[in-house]
């Protein structure tokens, strides 16, 4: 009898990068300032997009404050909208 390989029993999937802990909660950071360019830079893409929290590991609360900070920094000319 030929073995039937179902799509659900394939090779083991890689562990989701979203399982890593929040970098802001780790450092006890309450709020993220729009003027903090060095930290904002780490959370933006090469093209200027905000990185998804699936990849950065940021919690929802910090992701929202990060989004606000990046938008303000973009408005003030610190970070580019698009590269």
């Amino acid at each position, binding site marked *: 009898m030929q073995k039937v390989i179902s799509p659900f029993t394939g090779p083991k999937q890689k562990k989701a990068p979203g399982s890593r802990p929040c970098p802001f909660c780790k450092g006890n950071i*309450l*709020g993220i*300032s729009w003027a903090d360019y060095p930290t904002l830079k780490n959370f933006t893409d090469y093209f200027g997009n905000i990185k998804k929290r699936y990849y950065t590991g940021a919690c929802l609360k910090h992701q929202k404050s990060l989004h606000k900070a990046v938008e*303000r920094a973009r408005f*003030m*000319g*610190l970070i580019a*909208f698009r590269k």
Partner: protein
Amino acid sequence: MKTITPTSQENRIYECTVLMSSSVSDKEFSECVKNTEGFFTEKGGKQIAKHEWGKRGLAYDIKGQSEGRYTVYVYEIRPDYIKEIDNSMRLEKNVLRHMIIATPPEFEIIDWGKWFKEWLEKRDEEKERKEEEDREEEKKKIIKKVSKKASVEKTEKKPEAKSEPTPDIENKLEEIISDEDLNL
């Protein structure tokens, strides 16, 4: 760092940032700063902090300028006057962008301009250190290669050295050549 709380319940703490054009002369710049401060002081605002970041490059051109001067103020003022100040700041000359934010309860006063300069210096130092390390590694690699080549050449040369004519053989040859009996 300490968090700031307003002195009275009516007041709130606001962070105001003004981006001015860098092509303006120092006189015009100081006038612009006076005007922006005047908007707050007229309405009874109390200045808590003021930070000047100096000239800084912009991520994109604003009104045809690629450089600007940032100044950040922290004021304690009644929230009723913020709209008027915002409107008057919009009409101010030489101001490229401005932003007034109501600060969150966990707000801390930090000079981000200074912070940014320190970060830049650290980054440059790290770059130089990495470059030096790379150079040293390359040097070590080259030395290793040269030493390997030299050892290989030595091993190859050893049998050749045996085949070289010894002084005894040379002497004999000279004797044979110098013999008068031989008609060469």
